[in-house]
């Protein structure tokens, strides 16, 4: 007896079980740390000094998030409503900082040697340029929910200014949630603090881990930081209501930007200006020291040593993320309750510090029997740890594609006696293949930006390119570091253009 295509449309216990299993697996590595935290009473005395530093970090990141929020909404609306030549390429370029380790961006800013941009101001700057593309994407996605009738009505009522004012109000909840998510992600990113010499919460955790050799204290601090990130995000969700989550998880209409003589020109000029600040400043900071005869042999040596590993980590992480994300999307689809619960959980998982799960994997590898080394002490550990953190990206992309499939198709398949397998092969896979591919490539790129997991879990002799840059940057000539950084930046841009090629996936 074949299973009906309609089973994909019906509720069932398997949705709850499947979704819970994926979320539980993603959070499982944190269990040893939580247990340690509970066992020792959380080291409350030692954490007292950590709290002001955590507050300072939050303040710095929130400042960066606010800058990104303001600029991101403006730019996002410009790109939503006005067409201009090169808009697609500019949008892809805006995404570049998301695909680069923030350490490299901070390095570029540091090499730029403007005194104002070192220290805390530099931290705000890096947070802003990494969070900006997230806010922009959220704004574009949310504004696509506005119908052309609504836009026309706003235009008739008060021209372009009225449209932008109302649209800004409409997209604000989504943009705010995304800005705070970016803030939380940057909170656990050690790179900018290292490069710019700022004392922040994550650097304190590294001190506890690297200098004081106190895993227990590091775990307590890490959990406190995770708590702060969760609180920030939950507050944002409470303020914004359900709209941002709905925007994320349901299929939206598409934007219809149109040409407007003044506004299109303004959109183009403002995009270029922001792009200069976002990419131009760090890139120039890297280009200036890179102008020298390149040490081709050393560059090739680093790339050949790390190239295969970079590929393995990227494909492995992307495979783990795409598989679990696609499964999660199937479990969440067609059930508003599951969609809400799943989206909230996934956002929280995505915002947790990468260090949390990586430390958990490390602890589990130590107490587990040797036959588990394949999971805990190999490249697979890195791929699983990163993949189970990044799975919300493909999950949301696939979920939005699945939402675009009307229920009537499944009914038609049922009436025609088409089996579930055939329905999936002929209807569902063609619909989701674009988003799956886009999710795969985006997670592959994102995984390269996460150095923390690699630092803690990479097996001996298996560095990837960003980690190699990090380990040689202390004493290698500045020109070599800058040249490697630039090569990485160029690769990220090329890959982004490739992703842009999968337009079907990106549009959803």
């Amino acid at each position, binding site marked *: 007896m074949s299973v009906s295509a309609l089973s994909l449309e019906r509720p069932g216990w398997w949705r709850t079980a499947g979704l819970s299993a994926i979320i539980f697996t993603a959070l499982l590595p944190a269990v040893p740390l939580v247990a340690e935290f509970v066992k020792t009473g959380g080291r409350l005395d030692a954490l007292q*000094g950590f709290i002001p530093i955590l507050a300072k970090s939050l303040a710095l990141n929130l400042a960066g998030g606010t800058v990104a929020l303001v600029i991101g909404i403006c730019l996002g609306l410009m790109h939503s409503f006005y067409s201009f030549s090169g808009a697609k390429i500019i949008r892809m370029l805006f995404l570049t900082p998301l695909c680069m380790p923030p350490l490299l961006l901070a390095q570029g800013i540091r090499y730029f*040697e403007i005194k104002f941009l070192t220290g805390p101001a530099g931290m705000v700057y890096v947070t802003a340029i990494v969070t900006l593309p997230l806010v922009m994407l959220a704004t574009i996605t949310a504004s696509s929910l506005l119908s052309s009738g609504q836009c026309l009505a706003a235009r008739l009522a008060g021209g372009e200014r009225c449209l932008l004012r109302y649209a800004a109000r409409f997209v604000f909840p989504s943009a705010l949630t995304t800005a705070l998510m970016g803030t939380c992600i940057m909170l656990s990113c*050690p790179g900018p603090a*290292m*490069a710019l*010499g700022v*004392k922040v919460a994550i*650097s304190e955790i*590294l*001190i506890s*881990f*690297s*200098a*004081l*050799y106190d*895993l227990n204290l590091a775990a307590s601090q890490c959990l406190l930081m995770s708590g702060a990130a969760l609180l920030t995000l939950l507050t944002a969700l409470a303020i914004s209501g359900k709209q941002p989550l709905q925007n994320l998880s349901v299929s939206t209409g598409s934007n219809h930007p149109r040409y407007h003589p003044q506004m299109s020109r303004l959109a183009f000029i403002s995009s270029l200006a922001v792009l200069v600040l976002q990419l131009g400043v760090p890139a120039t900071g890297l280009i200036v020291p890179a102008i020298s005869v390149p040490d081709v042999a050393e560059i090739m040596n680093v790339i050949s040593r790390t190239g*295969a*590993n970079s*590929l*393995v980590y990227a*494909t*492995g992480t*992307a*495979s783990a993320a795409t598989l679990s994300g696609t499964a999660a999307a199937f479990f969440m689809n067609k059930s508003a309750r599951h969609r809400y619960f799943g989206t909230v959980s996934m956002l929280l998982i995505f915002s947790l510090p990468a260090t949390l799960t990586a430390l958990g994997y*490390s*602890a589990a*590898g*130590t*107490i587990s029997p*040797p036959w588990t080394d*394949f999971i805990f*002490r*190999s*490249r*697979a550990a890195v*791929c699983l740890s990163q993949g189970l953190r990044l799975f919300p990206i493909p999950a949301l992309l696939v979920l939005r594609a699945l939402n675009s499939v009307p229920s009537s198709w499944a009914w038609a398949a049922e009436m025609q006696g088409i089996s579930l397998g055939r329905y999936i*092969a002929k209807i569902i*896979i*063609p619909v989701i*293949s*674009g988003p*799956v*591919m886009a999710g*795969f490539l985006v997670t592959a790129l994102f995984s390269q930006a996460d150095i923390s997991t690699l*630092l*803690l879990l990479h*097996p*001996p*002799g*298996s560095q990837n390119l960003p980690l*190699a840059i*990090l*380990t*040689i*940057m*202390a*004493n*290698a*000539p*500045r020109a070599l570091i800058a040249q490697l950084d630039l090569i990485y930046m160029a690769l990220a841009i090329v890959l982004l253009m490739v992703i842009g090629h999968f337009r079907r996936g990106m549009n959803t």
Partner: protein
Amino acid sequence: MIFKRTIIFSVLCFEAILFGCQGNNTQPEVVVYTSVDDIFSRPVAKRFEEQSGIKVRLVTDTEETKSTGLLNRLIAESARPVADVFWSGDPVRAAILKKRGISAPYHSPSAKGLPEEFSDPEGYWTAFSTRARVIIFNKLAFSYRKPPASVRDLTSPEYKGMACMANPLFGTTSMHAAALFQALGPVGAKQFFNDFAANGGKIVGSNGDVKDKVASGECILGITDTDDINVAMKEGLDTGFVFPDQDTIGTLLVPNCAVLIKGAPHENEAKKFIDYLLSPEVEEMLAASTAAQFPLRDNIPGPEQFPPLSDIKIMQVDYNLLADTLQKIMDGFLKEWVDANS
């Protein structure tokens, strides 16, 4: 069409992962954790691979970037070690491993000719090539005045707000802090650190940052290592250096150490690697490299840019005791001092 493409793409990815996660188990290998900078340690590992046919799996760490906490990784893995050898950039981490029961004694036949005073008498670590802690200064700023002669000059009102050092919780600066506690006594060392802070001294991220800030003129003097001085020379920066305290406590040496890990999965290969590390060839390589390290053997020529070790007054410290001192001040005075002043 899309379906077929997806299937082909998935199969290719699966094969790439499968291939990537498999190791080549036929070649003998040794896993080396090292806190020596990647650009200095990797050529040595490569030369060993060429000579012995043993594959070296290197895990590098730079204390300057406060990265992996390699020592902590060794401690965490102690029940079932992954590493065979720890090539430490300083003897203090080696002493900590001994105290924690993570290292095993090994008296290498290659250690012949190396002075015994820098190594553990029980063979838990053997020292070879060394760096020195030096004062770096901006030549332009000191063109009309005498360069400083002692680390205590960093607290002089003459250099108010113009001196810097790396975060003393990390790397060689932490070892230097512990050495000052031993050489000056706790009262004298605390006085030095407090005076440094009161004089507007800056704490920067790493020894490399010290070099950069002094070269740019943001600070005019600081404390760093000889390898950073050599990088500054190679980059043509306008900086000079002084071996400090030649009339008093002497200059601190920071030798490399080879440590065999207890329960090493590849013990024979590990011993061969340690034998190689302690050979005169490696001391020569490290002296000639950008690391510009001083050979501990007196019959091997040192780096050209520095005077021979025999001409430098060396600070007398007990490295075993230094580990205890370091752990004590890390949790106490030093952590509080850094918290208060950074």
